[in-house]
């Protein structure tokens, strides 16, 4: 009477692949945003209307940029 040996099973090749998406903030965003320079008290300004308006718009433009930077920091999870 013969005794058959069991057939060995195939080896286990395991393919594991993992994708990890990490968002790294650039160093410029990690650095704190410096506050805008303070205006001298009781000051006044005299000049051409267009140029004075330009000064005001320059400040608004700077504030807009600061807001964008701040939003970017929030997206990065800094704040």
């Amino acid at each position, binding site marked *: *009477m*013969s*005794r*058959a*040996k*069991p*057939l060995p*099973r*195939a*080896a*286990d*090749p*395991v*393919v*594991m*692949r*993992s*994708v990890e*998406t990490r968002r790294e903030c650039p160093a410029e965003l990690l650095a704190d945003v410096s506050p805008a320079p303070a*205006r001298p*008290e*009781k*000051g*006044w*300004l*005299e*000049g*051409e*209307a267009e140029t*004075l*308006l330009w*000064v*005001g*718009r320059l*400040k*608004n*433009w700077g*504030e*807009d940029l600061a*807001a*964008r930077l701040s*939003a970017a920091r929030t*997206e990065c999870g800094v704040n």
Partner: protein
Amino acid sequence: MIAGLLSVFSGRRWLAAGAAGLALVAGLFWFRAVLTERLELREKVADSAACTAAVKSGGDLLICPQPVADAATQARRYLECDAALAEGRIYGVASACSAAVKRRDAEAEAAAHEARQLEAELTRTRASAQAALSRAQSRAQALLRKDQNAALALSRAPVGAHGRVRCDDQCLRELLGE
């Protein structure tokens, strides 16, 4: 008396007795060989029937000749593997499938996982882009309002000599939106 006895087993009678004895012994050996063969054949037939039954019923294949046992085991594993693949049973695939099938299965699984992750990432990116768009919109509105306020502040300021506008502290506060 002794001589008479010897005379009985002498000559041709001795030869005949020897031949008969030899034939008997040979016959016994032949009979034994035939009997042994028959018994072995009977056992083989029984084993073969048991093996066939085992292959049919999915029973233990130990009784079968090695090549038959291997082939039957392989066939069973193919069926097991198919079922495991269809039902997505990882352990079933690992135990029954061949190495090539396992590799394909693992690769398909990994690819599906990757696709799910990328899809989630895409959904998140879309939501993030939507939020960024609305933030940009509100920032643009705020900037426009500030510019209008600045122009308004300057229009209220007094105009001096040579058409120069004098913007005092209060005017500056409005101009700069403080």
